[in-house]
């Protein structure tokens, strides 16, 4: 790989394509800036550090859930159980608060998430069930059990713990939400893990060419089981933060974030066929989606128009991607 053809290439259209394909985060960041500028023009004076803090705070749970989708999509999978697991985790902590306390609640919620992730991972890794179906089935099971649990514990308090409220909703110097204490290390681990560790490379390998990965000695089923457990634990963490942010503990709290989490990963440049993408783009994708939905709200548009525009934007961005990267469904 000599540097000369590359530096020449940057100036041409093909070079621009390569830039988007290999560094999708640059055009994405430009898109984010564009959306923020539009917001500033539409609502002059509103875009302040306080506003940025609110946006960042709202984007954190979505970014973590989109991280679950990114990791699973790298292997060619998807995890539709993140919404049910996140809601279950938030609700579990709240329902166990009055009796056993916060520590036990967190441990039980994480344990339940690990079990759910194990179930998905075993189905996908060993029984080769399509990840869409497997995670869908697991989400039914988790939601049903959480509902049953809700009925059993109906008399106990279901307030969100004050610690989680601080973590999810409060901000340091108006700009940095306390949830960054969780999110920044998590994001660092994922970003470095995907680039520098064997496990991270294995995810790309399995998604890019499962047969080649198997023939090179990767034990796909082990990788997948661990992957879906990681995804479930991340979903549970997002559930804690979301419960703290909204001060609501409900078994359907995070359901509405499942489809946006897939959208954020897709906009962030992760291929749903596996093998291409990363968490950096996903974080920017989650920010873009959060700013857009704030923008649509600020414009005072009715919910109906907001949904229509939201869907249209997802299609347009995804189409722009497939045009530029040349990756198609044929």
């Amino acid at each position, binding site marked *: 790989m000599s540097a000369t053809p590359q530096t020449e290439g940057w100036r041409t259209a093909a070079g621009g394509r390569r830039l988007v394909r290999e560094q999708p985060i640059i055009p994405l960041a430009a898109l984010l800036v564009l959306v923020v500028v539009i917001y500033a023009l539409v609502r002059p004076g509103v875009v302040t550090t306080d506003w940025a803090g609110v946006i960042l705070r709202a984007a954190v749970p979505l970014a973590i859930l989109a991280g679950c989708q990114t990791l699973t999509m790298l292997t060619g999978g998807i995890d539709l159980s993140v919404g049910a697991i996140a809601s279950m985790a938030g609700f579990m902590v709240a329902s166990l608060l009055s009796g056993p306390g916060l520590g036990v609640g967190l441990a039980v919620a994480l344990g339940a998430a690990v079990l759910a992730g194990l179930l998905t991972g075993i189905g996908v890794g060993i029984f080769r069930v399509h990840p869409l179906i497997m995670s869908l089935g697991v989400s*039914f099971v988790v939601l049903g059990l959480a509902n049953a649990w809700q009925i059993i514990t109906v008399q106990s308090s279901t307030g969100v713990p004050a610690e989680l409220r601080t973590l999810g909703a409060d901000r340091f110097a108006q700009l940095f939400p306390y949830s960054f204490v969780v999110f920044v290390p998590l994001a660092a681990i994922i970003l470095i893990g995907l680039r520098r560790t064997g496990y991270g490379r294995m995810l790309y390998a399995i998604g890019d060419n499962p047969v080649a990965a198997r023939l090179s000695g990767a034990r796909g089923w082990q990788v997948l089981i661990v992957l879906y457990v990681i995804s479930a634990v991340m979903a549970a963490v997002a559930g804690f933060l979301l419960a703290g942010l909204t001060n609501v503990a409900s078994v359907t709290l995070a359901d509405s974030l499942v489809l946006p989490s897939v959208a954020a990963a897709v906009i962030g440049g992760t291929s749903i066929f596996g093998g291409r993408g990363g968490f950096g783009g996903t974080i920017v994708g989650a920010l873009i989606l959060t700013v857009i939905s704030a923008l649509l709200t600020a414009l005072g548009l009715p919910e109906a128009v907001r949904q229509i525009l939201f869907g249209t934007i997802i299609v347009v961005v995804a189409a722009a991607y497939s045009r530029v990267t040349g990756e198609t469904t044929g």
Partner: protein
Amino acid sequence: MSAATGTIDDVRRRPVDTLVAWTRRNGWTLSLLAILALLLVFTKMVNPSYGVSGIQGLAISVLPLAFAAAAQAVCVIGGGIDLSIGSMMALTSVVAASQMKGQSEELGVAIVLGVLLLGLVLGAINGGVIVVTRVPDIVVTLAMAFVWGGGALLVLKTPAGGSAQWLKDLVLGSAGIDWIPKAAVVLLVVVALVWIPLRRSKMGLSIYAIGSNRLAAFRSGVSVGRTKIIAYALTGLFAALAGLSLTASTGIGNPVPGPYTLMSVAAVVLGGVSLAGGRGGVFGPIIGVLILVLIQNDMSFLSLDPNLALVSQGLILIGVVMFGSLIQWRRSRR
């Protein structure tokens, strides 16, 4: 291998062989029917008073989901997946309910036909966007779910509207004999009218072909893009039928999509349609729907927590699919 030996001595086939071959080909659907029969017996055991009204209630409550499953089946057979079915149902349902309220019965017929056309158009737009943008089906239909859902909210903000009386009469009650609910007749007649001619036509074969192997289909002269758009248009048509049956059974239109999209995916897989495409039919998924709904009913008869029904639906879905992939795995080993 096994397929080749089956076709060579096609010339002199005994009737028994044909029957055996038919049973083998429809093995999955037949086992589903057996499970359904067992479930019905079980239902009668736990609830001895289960009878005509129970069957009729079952038929009406499964009607929207059964059409949704048929809708999902068509595009999954064509190698796609449609995550906007629930939203298309909501949109067609509110359009039907808002237009029919206070109108004459005759105008109701025109409105129903218009709504079916609307379904075809919505589905064709889904397929067209997929073909033109070349974005994966799952991403496009996910985004279109927002668009159609927003459209439904534009038409009606809250559940409202009405339904023509004949449309309600079409699905409520029994068809002559007490044991045969009208809803079941409507379902069977409509699905058979759309599906059986399609299955036997060149277009039907093309849909199976692009789902099975897109490149091979293309090289055999199938117009892949056009076939895909038609498959999605049919999905939209079935989704409109599902939306209409929602309006007919409730008498109103609700702009908030129900849990139909994901349930339809579950029913399709349970019904023996491979998510990889090119395999299965629409009747298996409909039986799958019956099984899923009957389990829910049985749970309430046993006065168990209805949420456990959700758990068992999930477990059955997982179990059946795991069983299916085990069979496939053993077959490929042989």
